[in-house]
């Protein structure tokens, strides 16, 4: 087990190195001069040259890449091109916290709504209620953010005047409600459907039949034999939902005016703020790899049948 974790952790720097190399190369050969973006209207050749010198932009590719990697190893991702004089890590830290709060709110909502729906659908399997839940969540899963967000705005902002139409005020502000719901809806569908399927799978296993045959009360069978075994996919969903969350950040944060990492990434892309893009890409890639590792390790605790060596 320890050897497995070490082997997986050794893989992390390899992935990050590959990801950083691809991102760096794309950024290096991309046209569109960050210096011109920075100086804007006031561009004059001498000043541009001086700035290039200062930022080290006129050095050869490999030298710049190695320099980037060495600095990144000590946690220094350089300064933002757009916000001059501010280290990338400082700029990103605040944004990450905003996105983490939004993501947590979305995930919590998804589980809070998804788990009761799953239990209902699995218990009433084959009834109209089951059909309704499965159908509704399927619809919610495939409707894009572009539709759900304006619909919620129409209903709760324009018609009912209950909620504000944009902005950010932290976890305990009414402005988080709409984006968190929009973020939760696709996850809700995945949770309900996946859990329903896995419950039905477990329901017909021999050990459940044995538990019933030896006369255990139905509630004990459900709680101790069915639900416990059906929970495993929930853990997988948690790991997978990270990818969906990050994609949601780009669109939802931009649409709703939330100062998070997604809106930041989109903004950096347009201003060709490469130090920011590099840092954000590496951060997301690292969290993907770590999340997958945590999911795999978690399995061994949730299901003692799973062993890695």
């Amino acid at each position: 087990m320890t050897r497995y974790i070490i082997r997986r952790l050794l893989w992390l720097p390899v992935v990050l190195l590959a990801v950083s190399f691809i991102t760096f190369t794309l950024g290096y050969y991309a046209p569109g001069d960050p210096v011109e973006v920075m100086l804007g209207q006031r561009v004059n050749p001498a000043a541009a040259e001086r700035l290039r010198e200062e930022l080290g932009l006129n050095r050869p590719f490999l030298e710049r890449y190695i320099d980037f990697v060495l600095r990144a190893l000590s946690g220094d991702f350089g300064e933002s091109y757009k916000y001059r004089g501010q280290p990338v890590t400082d700029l990103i830290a605040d944004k990450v916290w905003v996105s983490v709060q939004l993501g947590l709110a979305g995930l919590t909502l998804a589980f809070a709504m998804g788990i009761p729906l799953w239990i209902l659908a699995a218990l009433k399997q084959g009834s109209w209620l089951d059909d309704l839940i499965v159908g509704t969540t399927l619809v919610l899963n495939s409707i894009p953010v572009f539709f759900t967000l304006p619909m919620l705005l129409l209903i709760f902002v324009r018609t009912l005047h209950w909620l504000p139409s944009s902005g950010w005020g932290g976890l305990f502000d009414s402005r988080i409600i709409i984006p968190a719901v929009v973020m939760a809806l696709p996850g809700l569908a995945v949770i309900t459907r996946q859990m329903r399927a896995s419950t039905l799978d477990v329901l017909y296993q021999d050990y459940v039949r044995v538990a019933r045959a030896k006369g255990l009360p139905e509630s004990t069978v459900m709680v101790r034999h069915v639900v416990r075994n059906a929970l495993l996919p929930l853990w997988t969903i948690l790991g997978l939902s990270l990818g969906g969350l990050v994609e949601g950040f780009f669109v939802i944060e931009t649409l709703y005016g939330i100062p998070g990492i997604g809106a930041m990434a989109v903004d950096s892309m347009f201003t060709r703020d490469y130090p920011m893009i590099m840092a954000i890409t590496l951060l997301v890639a690292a969290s993907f790899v770590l999340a997958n590792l945590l999911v795999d390790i978690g399995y061994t605790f949730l299901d003692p049948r799973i062993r890695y060596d």
Partner: protein
Amino acid sequence: MTDRAALSPGVPVAGEAPVKGRSLWRVTWSRFRRRKVAVAGLVFILVVYAAGIFAPWVAPYDYRAQNLDKARQPPSWEHPLGTDELGRDILSRLIWGARTAAVVSILAVSLGTLYGVVLGALSGYLGGWVDSLIMRLADILFAFPGMLFVIFIAATIKPGFVGFVAQHEAALGLEGLARSGYLDYVVVFGALSFVGWPGMARLVRGQVLSLKNQEFVVAAQALGASTWQVVRRHLLPNALPPVLVAVSMGLGHAVTAEVVLSWLGIGVQPPNPSWGTMIWENRMQWRINPHLLLMPAATVGLVNLSFQFIGDALNDALNPRGR
């Protein structure tokens, strides 16, 4: 298809009347047909894609034709879905947007599936270092935040690519190509297919791994079939069902991805029509003229939903355990 014998159980046994063979496709279709929503979804998708492909003949107006006297109209007989800020007919713009969505999604998914199937089949069948190399590459691409990567590729490669074509278009005999905006489509589906293949490769690899030690494959090898013959005639046809489901879901994702890219302004550029640009242009209209925003958004939603229904029904219909 070519390999019915391996797929259908209807092989006559000595002494019995030959059972009429039912091909995989016939069985699947008869099971698929029972799901009414999936059939409705299929019909909707066919209508949208056909409308898109035949847009120049189907659309009632030119998608660029402006009429400021008739701006922001609600639906009417003259303009069935109303008009936008500039008095352009929404239905026509949706139909032309369907053309973009159809072209991009079909090409992106075919290319991504091609890479994925070839690499996944090689990886699963050959094993060894080829397998390690391909799967590690897939792992790395998986670690990339997908959408961010597509945005990044589209934003960084496009200007250089367009510039390159502009320099060489005379030599290729394709004058005006760089300015036509068609290259936007190439960049978008190129980027999408590049990000899309690892999932497909893993799927196909898993299928091939579970198939390659089965008796009919071993028998084919023992009879002297070449690697290529085994892969093409025995492994791929049997690995096909989950691939088809993934393709159906993938088309929906590709449509959404194109919408996101165009919405961000790095996909298909105006005046070329796209549902994404329509959503972006009307993003502020939800308060005053919500239908301007909801029409394109609902179209994207319905297309996605239809692909989901089709994929789901296909999954059930192709699943041998449920047969």
